[in-house]
């Protein structure tokens, strides 16, 4: 293994994994079964040099590895056009290099929506923050938040340091958020999960949060919202939803038998404050709608089609929806993508709308159903965000101005 071409890449990958183990004070390495690769997202020439080094050194992947979003959409190169700048050309080249390395080109930040996800207790490599949180919390797989290069080195060696969230003792909850005092209509709103996630991220610090009082009917789209929002406003690679997520059938299980050290009762005032933090200025006119951060799921498509009911998007409003190519194909097979596109919705795969450089000169007031989008986009693009439920986004798109449902958390 140390001789020949493949040895050079494997050796460098192993040196990197061992250095990470030393820094993390891990006593051993453990096997992984899967990796979600973030290094395919362009962040300067060094990214390209790294993967080219690995390819030239004959790197082979030891485990299945799926790609996160790229900066460019391979399905629509005009969005961020590789012929228009060196950065976009290299970003495009980078994505193709990871396909050559053997990654499965799923190009999504929500790989857990695709068939073939890991099982409870399986050790994996997650990288994108919402996916790390979803895999740990909802799937019950085990991953730390892996950064660029280490994700690839782990996929080449099939090994990671046995540290942090790979170990039982670090997965116990350390802080309780109690939502059981909230009104049923709040608990039934899709926006609630985004606002709750934002609040939990703000207040958790380095502790693992547990949430008590969520409805049993909350679905994976709701849990995705918590994962994404909490890892944007804070660093929450793992949370437990009591009675819902697999490591938290009971309060005792979530805290691993220890007493609850600290608890916070979540109020409607907390949620309204979260909403205000994520864009409460309604004065400027609406320019666009952005859905699908993290990538839209099949069930979200179903709900959107039902809410929009083939009504046209108002003139002058750009309506963007980002999703994975896998979910796009599923939605197309159901006849939904044609109906949405006919109504004026632009569906984008492989990438996201909040990354810089901005697509199609998007600017001004943008309404989104995503706390993550609302948290990041105004810092990266010339936009102001306003957050709303999926229904509020749809009604606003049809009306051409921000429409809020007064029944709904406002």
């Amino acid at each position, binding site marked *: 293994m140390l001789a020949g071409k493949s040895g050079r890449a494997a050796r460098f990958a192993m040196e*990197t994994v061992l250095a990470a183990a030393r820094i*993390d004070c891990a006593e051993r390495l453990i096997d992984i079964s899967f990796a979600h690769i973030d290094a395919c997202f362009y962040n300067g020439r060094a*990214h390209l040099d790294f993967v080219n080094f690995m390819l030239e050194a004959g790197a082979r992947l030891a485990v299945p590895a799926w790609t996160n979003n790229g900066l460019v959409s391979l399905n629509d190169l005009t969005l961020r056009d590789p012929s228009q700048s060196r950065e976009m050309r290299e970003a495009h080249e980078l994505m193709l290099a990871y396909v050559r390395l053997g990654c499965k080109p799923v190009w999504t930040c929500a790989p857990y929506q695709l068939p073939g996800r890991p099982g409870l207790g399986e050790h994996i490599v997650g990288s994108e923050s919402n996916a790390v949180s979803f895999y740990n919390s909802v799937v019950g797989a085990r991953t730390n938040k892996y950064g660029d290069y280490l994700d690839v080195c782990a996929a080449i060696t099939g090994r990671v340091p046995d540290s942090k969230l790979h170990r039982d003792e670090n997965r116990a909850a350390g802080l309780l958020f109690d939502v059981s005092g909230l009104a049923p209509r709040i608990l039934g709103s899709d926006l609630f999960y985004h606002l709750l996630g934002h609040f939990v991220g703000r207040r958790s610090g380095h502790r693992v949060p547990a949430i008590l009082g969520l409805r049993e009917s909350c679905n994976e789209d709701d849990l995705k919202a918590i994962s994404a929002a909490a890892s944007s406003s804070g660093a929450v690679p793992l949370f437990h939803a009591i009675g819902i997520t697999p490591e938290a059938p009971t309060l005792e299980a979530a805290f691993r038998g220890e007493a609850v050290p600290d608890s916070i009762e979540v109020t409607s005032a907390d949620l309204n404050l979260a909403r205000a933090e994520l864009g409460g200025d309604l004065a400027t006119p609406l320019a666009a709608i952005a859905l699908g951060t993290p990538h839209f799921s099949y069930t979200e498509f179903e709900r959107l089609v039902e809410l929009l009911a083939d009504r046209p998007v108002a003139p002058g409003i750009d309506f963007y929806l980002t999703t994975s190519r896998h979910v796009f194909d599923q939605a197309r097979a159901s006849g939904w993508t044609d109906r949405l596109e006919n109504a004026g919705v632009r569906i984008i795969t492989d990438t996201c709308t909040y990354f810089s450089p901005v697509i199609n000169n998007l600017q001004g007031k943008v309404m989104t159903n995503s706390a993550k989008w609302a948290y990041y986009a105004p810092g990266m693009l010339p936009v102001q965000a306003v957050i709303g439920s999926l229904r509020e986004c749809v009604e606003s798109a049809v009306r051409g101005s921000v429409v809020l449902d007064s029944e709904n958390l406002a």
Partner: protein
Amino acid sequence: MLIAGRASGPALVLDEALSFWGGFDPANGEIIDVHHPQRGCRVGGSILFIPESRGSAGTPGGIAETLRNGSGPLAFVLGERDVNIGVGVLVANRLYDLEVPVLEIDRARMVEIENGARVTIDFAGELLIEGDD
């Protein structure tokens, strides 16, 4: 010593944690995080002291890119062990044949270091500060 190497240069002591993705421009080594007290400061050519790490999957790439194009620090001295910074430096050292060390020191010692003080790191990981006994 987290990553071995030798370096010598002026200390730049950050007052707060920094994310090297989003809060930092790897093209020129400038701190761009609007919430950071040292926004606008450039880290190039310094021995960079960072009290606390802040995680982002993009941090190793930001580090490797700033080291590649020569706008990065000569060494990193951390108040907390940080895998992302370590991996970014390790990869850059390997790809570009650099010798950028990464050290961890006590945070109590870090707060006593003055900006601009001449710092030397030797291959054994010893940190020598001008004016120190």
